[in-house]
Structures are given as C-alpha cells and as structure tokens.
C-alpha cells in the first residue's frame, strides 16, 4: 500500500525540518531550568499519536480523494503539534507573532480537513457495505473468508444456514439451497496448472455473486463446490434461478476450457444445517452419476 504514497511519505520530514530551522532562527533556546517537563510530556504524546494516525492512513488507505483529505488534515495537525512542542524548548521575542500564528492556525484547518475526509470515508464505507451485503449477511470476521475467492467459507455458511432455517421456519417461508460443482475440475487443474484452476474459481465466484439478490448468500463450500443460499425462495423459483445461472455461466467457457457445472437445488424444510448440506451433497453425487438429472440442461 505504501508504494502508492511515496510523495506523502517524503513530505513530512522537510516540512518539519523547515519549521525547526525557522524556530531556531527566530528564537533562542531555553535553559533546562526553564523547561516545564510535564508540558513536554503531554505535547510529545499528542505529537506521537498524530504521527501514528498519519502512518496508519498511509499504510491502510489506497490512493484517492478521501485519503488526500485524511492525510493532509493529519499532516497539518502534526505540524501544529510539532511547533507546539518546540516552543517548550525555544523562547520567541514577544514582538514576533509568526510562530504563534503558525502554531495555532494549522490545527483547526487540519481538524476541518480531517473531518471532511472522515465524512468521505463514511460515505465510501456505506457503498462498500451495500456491495458486500449479499456476501456478508450475519457477521464480519476476516477469518471466515476464503482468501482466494474472497467469499465466505464453510464455517460462515453453517452459521448463516442455522440462523436462516430458524427464521424461515418461524415465519413459514421457504428457504432454498443451490449447490454448484465443477465437473472434472481436478483434471482441468492437472492439464492447465493450479494457477489456471485458481483463476477459474475466482472468475466463477465473481460471475455468481454478480447475479445475486441482496438477500442471497454465496459461499465457497469446499474446493470446487459453491453454495448459494436463497432466502425466501421456493423450490420452483430456485429452479428458475438455477437455470438462469447456468445460462449465465456459459460466459465463463473460453477457448481452452469447456468445464461443465452441475447445479442442484434443494428446498430445506425440516433438516438441520448439517443434514441439509449433506442431503444436497448426496443429490449432487446422484446428479453427477447421471441417476438424477441436474436441473440445468447441459449446454
């Protein structure tokens, strides 16, 4: 992340050095007896915290408008706090007001800029939250994410499924489960390499999540198997959705790969989360073996 901010990393040092030079030319250093060490401690800590903010902004934010506001706001605060700390060591003649202005003015301006940046951050977060809603229904925990596809992994699926089953049962609504499986995925991996396989999984997950409603949850179940939880959806609706998905997924097939994707649909009525997933897996196995046709017509 920090590579995007080379200018921002290099800026504070010359700025603060300039402040120090100016202070040294205008004023005279105090003798140790005159220094109030409590003030130094307090102002020093404030300065350190402001520098920490600046570092956090640089290390965690991508380059962009909101980041600029946050950065320059914090930078002004750092400058102000720095000069504030300097005047504990340097005494300025009473008739020169420059340093006192330089010390007091940047702080409120910096605060305003920082606040404006925070508002921008808040807006940005709202948009991101909306985008994530389909994926992130219940809780936020990065340990539950699959690092490859950035989808939620199976632990999360269990938690969501258990909760949704109870809710849907209480309100007597229907809940459907879609399980996708890539046929012959290990052979594909073997032929084209693990990188191509990973790439395919990422594309597949992106394509699937683009087709979801906000209330649906897409999870990577295991390996080449994905599960979509369709809230408030009957079996009939889920079948239509699955057919739509199948058609949509044909876009994925490019010249070298012609992978087939099996999709099975299961409406869950009485079972627990674990049983429901097991039952759906059995259906998938039957569909792969050709005993029961998958809902999707092979293209």
């Amino acid at each position, binding site marked *: 992340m920090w590579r995007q901010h080379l200018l921002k990393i290099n800026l504070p040092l010359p700025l603060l050095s300039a402040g120090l030079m100016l202070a040294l030319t205008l004023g005279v250093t105090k003798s140790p007896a005159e220094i109030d060490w409590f003030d130094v401690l307090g102002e020093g800590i404030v300065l350190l915290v402001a520098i920490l903010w600046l570092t956090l902004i640089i290390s965690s934010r991508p380059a962009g408008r909101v980041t600029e506001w946050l950065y320059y706001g914090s930078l002004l605060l750092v400058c102000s706090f720095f000069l504030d700390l300097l005047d504990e060591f340097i005494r300025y003649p009473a008739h020169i007001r420059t340093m006192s202005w330089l010390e007091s003015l940047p702080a409120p301006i910096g605060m305003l800029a920082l606040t404006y940046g925070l508002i921008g951050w808040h807006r940005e977060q709202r948009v991101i939250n909306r985008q994530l809603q389909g994926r992130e229904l219940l809780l936020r925990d990065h340990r539950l*994410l699959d690092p490859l596809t950035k989808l939620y992994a199976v632990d999360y699926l269990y938690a969501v499924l258990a909760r949704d089953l109870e809710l849907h049962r209480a309100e007597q609504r229907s809940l459907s489960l879609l399980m996708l499986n890539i046929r012959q995925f*290990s052979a594909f991996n073997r032929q084209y390499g*693990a990188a191509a396989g990973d790439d395919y999984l990422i594309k597949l997950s992106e394509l699937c999540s683009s087709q979801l409603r906000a209330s649906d949850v897409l999870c990577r179940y295991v390996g080449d198997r994905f599960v979509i939880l369709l809230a408030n959806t009957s079996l009939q609706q889920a079948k239509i959705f699955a057919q739509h998905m199948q058609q949509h997924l044909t876009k994925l097939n490019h010249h070298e790969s012609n992978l087939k994707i099996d999709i099975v649909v299961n409406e869950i009525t009485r079972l627990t989360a674990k049983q429901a997933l097991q039952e759906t897996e059995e259906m998938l196995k039957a569909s792969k073996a050709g005993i029961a046709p998958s809902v999707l017509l092979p293209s």
Partner: protein
Amino acid sequence: MTTHFSFTDKNLLLRHGPTAVLQLAQRRGGQLHKLLSGTSIFEQDLMNPQSRCHHRDWLKLLSHCQQLQSPELPFLLADSVLNHRNIALCQSIAVAANLAQSLKQLCYFRHQLLPALYPKIKRIDNKLMLSFKPAIALGVQQHFISILAISFLVKLIRQQLADSSQLHVLLKQATPANEQLFKAHWQCQVSFNQQFDAILIPLAYWHQSFADSNPHRFQQYRQACYQLNQRLPAQRGLLEHLQRQIDRALPRQLGIEDAAALLGLSCSSLKRLLQQHNTNFAAIADEVRRDKAHLLLLQGNYSNRQLAEQLGYSDEHNFRRAFKRWTGMLPSSAKALTPISF
C-alpha cells in the same frame, strides 16, 4: 557427508514444494516479501532451479502461509507438486506400471521430495498400511506435512486408477471443523483421532495398471532421478535414524551410548541435537515401543506376554503399565475395539 540431516542442512530443492506453496499463497493474498521474511530464501533464489533451502526455513514458510487461513493449502500443494512437469520423480511415479512400482520408486527417492517424513509399510488383513512419521521434529507443522504426503498419494491413486473410494485415511489430529474438506478432496473414508497418520490401501489396488503407464518414459525419468541423486544424496532425518535403530534392536533396548556410536556422534552431541528437536532419547525409545505395540495389536492376536517380550519389557505387568500410560486403557480393552480406531 553425514548420513543424517537436521534443521539447517540444505537438502530441499525450492522447486520441489516451496515455490509451489509460495505461488498458491500469493494467489490467496500473501505478499512474497512477507512470506519469505525471517527465512534465508530470497526472491532471486526462486528463479534458480538448483536453489535449496533447509527445514527451518521450510517450516517457517509453511507457518507464514497458514496465516492466510486457507485450509485447502496442503491439498492443493500436493496436487501442484504431483503434476509438476519439472520434478522427475513425480513424473516417473505417474508413468509407472502400477502402484507397487510407483511406491517403490517413491520410497527409494523420497529424500528428493519430502525428507521430513518417513514411511513404514505393514500388511493388515487384505490391506497395506502406509504410515508416516516425522523424520525431524516438525512441531505444529506436522499435521500440514502429513496431510500433504497423504494427499499426494490419494491424488496419485485417483488420477491413475480413477477411484479412491476403497482407501481409508487415518489421521492423528482431532476432528476438525472443516471435515468435509478432507472428504471432498480425497473422496474416501477419513478417520481422525487415530494413533497413526496413515493410509490403508487395499491389496486389489496394488497391481492394477496405471492409466498413464509407459515403461520407456519411466526408465527415462528414473535415470533423471538417479542423476539428481548425485547432487541430493539420500540423507535421513535424525529422528528417523534413531527410531529405526531402536526399532531394529528390539526386543533389546538400545542405550543412548550405542545409538550415538551408530550415528558417529558423542553422547553429549546427540543429547544436544535431540534438545534442538524438543525431545530426548528416552521419549523417542518410548514412542518407538508405543507404535510397535499398536501395530502388533492391529496385526494379530498377541497375548500380553508375547507383546511384552517383543517390546523388551521384563514382564507383562510393566508392559500393561506402559500401555496404560500411552493410551489410558489396558491392552485387552484396546484389542476389543475395532481394528482401526483403538
């Protein structure tokens, strides 16, 4: 050249695993410089096909990769290594005539691929049990490396015999939350909380011919493996060396002086080396006898007196006491349980 290796012997080619795991980790959001931090591997080394690393770095690399919270990593790594076109050993075992030839080849050249584990093969009824034990102390990475080795074999069998449903995998680790991951990748029976990390292969698989069998290419790849052997000679891990010596000496109990002499070390050097592996000689000797007791119980109906004799205990009471210490139960109740899960 010493015959055994420890943590800092550079006997692992980077292209035989570390490079593949780094590529997998990078696609899962890991940053190369962070994955390599604290190891003596540099980015340039990854380009050089002859670069090697030692096990301290390899274990560190694995622990960095595991921070990515991707439980499928050992399964995928096994897949990538198995199908790697530049690893002669992997190519050779895929074109062998059958599983018997393939595993023989793999066992002979295993130090080229996974020197951190050593296999033991035993026949139990109509199955062969291939169990894996750490050849050097692997610490928390032991589960990862065991899964890697077992996954490698299961994938080989599935690719060549198109069926793995008759296999049975035993794992020491407790039942994990993501149990279905194991079943989905291996498609065979998996039991957790076992005494061994092992795979049970039915004898029927042993001589079924491989789908890609090609005697001519097998010879070519075998030749390449022999050539690699000149640069990567067969060295065994310190723990493997010791455990084999202790096992061979049974029912006589090997003393630490004898063991040190066999390794060409002084007694104190051996003690110091074992300290690096967080263990001591008595613990290793105990482990060997425990494993042997479990194996004998699996293999047949021995009386406690016979077991005590074979394991070098002075009488059966001492054996019963030791067995209770290992498993929390008496040998008789262990025998009554099903053959596999004690």
